[in-house]
């Protein structure tokens, strides 16, 4: 089935996206607050300095005198490397300081400093202007004191703040991403657990799923369980139907066959006997085909969802030899067992492997002449090979690849009853287990050797 997106990926990207937005916001807020705090500090010192200068202004005779308090400028020295500029203007005349230091165009109100940021002498400076009215009230001189300072220190602080904020933001983002990954995984754990408990089941295990289900998955599991219940009901109906149908068809067929055998005994004329034999062969053929078709359906069904059990292939081969021993005995055929000297363990579906081997051995017995030997071999050199070698007629030079297709049979089957499904069954079983079948001429003379080759381990 093609997957349409991944919940985990979506969950992860969404959480990580939220984390990224939060990190950026965090960065912006942190830097803003810190820079404003640093600027505020500079502004406070600048304004204290300007106020101190303004406070030392004196009115004298017709003018204004200023004894520049050095403390006012030295307090600005706390911020390193920065240059300080000042200018005191009384009635449009620069009393002292840098005459080209721009002053604010509007005269600041008394006690209310005006701040400004501008370029001065190639550097960005922060300036504050305060004003005082000096002299008698009737004829006061308006004096404006401006103190400016470069922003090097502030920029250094700002860089440090930016670096710290970036570090914190990136750290937060990485941590949040890791947490999102974990959260996405842990949120999907119950689904994985459920998937596991469903996929581990054998093909015939249709019991309801009973793993610990989180509330969100309860409806899904309930739907799955009700679906399985319906499937179980339908399967058991099908099985009952097949059993009933087989019973209804095969029982009268058995009566007919038995009566035919009795009649055959009582008849004397060869042509009559031959007719009865024809009848019996037809019955056997229909019964065999029906059996193999059911086997084939069973193999197709089970191969889709393979049961995996630990098997001993020696034991399975021995079991099949036991089962078909009497059939071989009837034709005086000896089944020679050439098994591996220790148990051959393999993980697979025992029922399927039995079906495959039974079909191969049954074929070998059918096509073998009387008084012959069939070798059943289990070998583990290189790969696991279970082979059945007979001294029969072989496959008459038919392309061995074609023999595994449905209903294909050798070129020399003559009158032997068969449906051509036996090798198809064996081939499908082998392929379901990651192996294949090999059909070769018997290396030690006439006949054929059919092998199921399975990978080791």
């Amino acid at each position: 089935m093609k997957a349409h997106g991944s919940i985990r990926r979506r969950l992860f990207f969404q959480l990580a996206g939220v984390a990224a937005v939060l990190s950026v916001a965090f960065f912006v807020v942190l830097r803003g607050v810190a820079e404003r705090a640093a600027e505020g500090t500079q502004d406070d010192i600048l304004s204290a300095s300007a106020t101190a200068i303004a406070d030392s202004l004196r009115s004298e005779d017709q003018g204004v005198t200023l004894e520049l308090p050095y403390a006012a400028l030295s307090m600005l020295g706390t911020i390193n490397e920065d240059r300080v500029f000042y200018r005191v203007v009384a009635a449009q005349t620069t009393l002292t300081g840098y005459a080209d230091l721009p002053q604010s165009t509007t005269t600041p109100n008394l006690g209310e400093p005006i701040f400004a940021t501008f370029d001065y002498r190639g550097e960005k400076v922060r300036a504050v202007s305060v004003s005082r009215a000096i002299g008698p009230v009737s004829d006061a001189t308006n004096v404006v004191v401006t103190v400016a300072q470069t922003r090097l220190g502030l920029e250094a602080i700002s860089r440090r703040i930016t670096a710290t904020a970036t570090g914190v933001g990136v750290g937060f983002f990485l941590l949040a991403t890791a947490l999102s990954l974990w959260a996405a995984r842990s949120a999907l754990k119950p689904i994985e657990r459920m998937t596991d408990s469903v996929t581990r089941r054998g093909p015939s295990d249709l019991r309801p799923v009973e793993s610990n289900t989180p509330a969100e998955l309860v409806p899904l599991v309930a739907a799955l369980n009700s679906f399985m219940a319906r499937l179980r009901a339908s399967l058991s109906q099908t099985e009952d139907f097949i059993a009933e149908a087989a019973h209804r068809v095969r029982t009268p067929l058995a009566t007919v066959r038995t009566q035919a055998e009795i009649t055959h005994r009582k008849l004397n004329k060869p042509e009559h006997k031959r007719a009865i034999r024809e009848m019996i062969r037809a019955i056997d053929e229909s019964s065999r085909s029906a059996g193999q078709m059911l086997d084939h359906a069973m193999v197709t069904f089970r191969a889709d969802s393979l049961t995996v059990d630990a098997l001993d292939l020696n034991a399975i081969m021995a079991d099949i030899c036991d089962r078909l021993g009497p059939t071989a005995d009837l034709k005086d055929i000896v089944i020679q067992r050439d098994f591996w000297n220790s148990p051959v363990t393999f993980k697979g579906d025992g029922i399927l492997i039995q079906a495959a081997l039974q079909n191969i051995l049954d074929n070998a017995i059918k096509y073998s002449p009387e008084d012959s030997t069939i070798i059943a071999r289990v070998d583990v050199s290189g790969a696991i090979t279970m082979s059945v070698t007979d001294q029969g007629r072989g496959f008459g030079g038919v392309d061995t690849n074609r023999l595994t297709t449905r209903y294909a049979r050798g070129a020399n089957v003559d009158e032997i009853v068969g449906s051509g499904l036996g090798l198809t069954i064996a081939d499908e079983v082998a392929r379901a287990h990651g192996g294949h079948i090999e059909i070769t001429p018997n290396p030690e003379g006439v006949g054929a050797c059919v092998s199921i080759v399975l990978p080791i381990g």
Partner: protein
Amino acid sequence: MRFLLIEDNLKLAGAIEERLRLDGHAVDHAPTLETAASCMAVASYDLILLDIMLPDGDGRTFLQSHRRAEKRTPVIVITARSAVSDRVSLLDLGADDYITKPFDFSELEARCRAVLRRQGGAADNRKKFGNTYLDSAAGELQFDDSRVNLRNRELRLLEVFFAAPGQVFSKNHLMDRLFSLSDEVSENAIEVYVGRLRKRLEGSDVRIDTVRGLGYRMVPL
């Protein structure tokens, strides 16, 4: 051999009874599990042939209770189902073997023989003629101090002769007994097997006579 046949289909049961009698076996027929239980209470059988679908219960429950009661009589299930999975479940329940309907009587006989051999043989597995014993379970001839192993068809052919010493059996009859009806066999196949038997019997005081135009019979030397 004495069979108990548990089968509810009367036509099939009748045919099986008649067919088994043709080969000289005794058959009691029980159409239900209840009748089967009463049969087993009063008689002992060499083998039980059991159908799975019965009117008064499932043959599988019979199998289980039969095994629980530790009865030794082997059970061969006659089933309409052929899948390997069904076979595994039947054998797990304690069936000794199974055969799928419709079945070949030679194969049924072969399976009975195999089951009995595994169990150590039926009550009358040794038959005597002159100085010679035929041991069906071991599949060998015993005379004087020698033991001769027999192949399956040789054994079955000798069983026919030992069952009625002196009686003449036609080639046709012997062929019917020896070959499955789905086998393609030629008329002289019997001559081949009689020839082999004569070789096996060399040294004993039993021989197989050709009665010209009629068939063969077993007579003392």
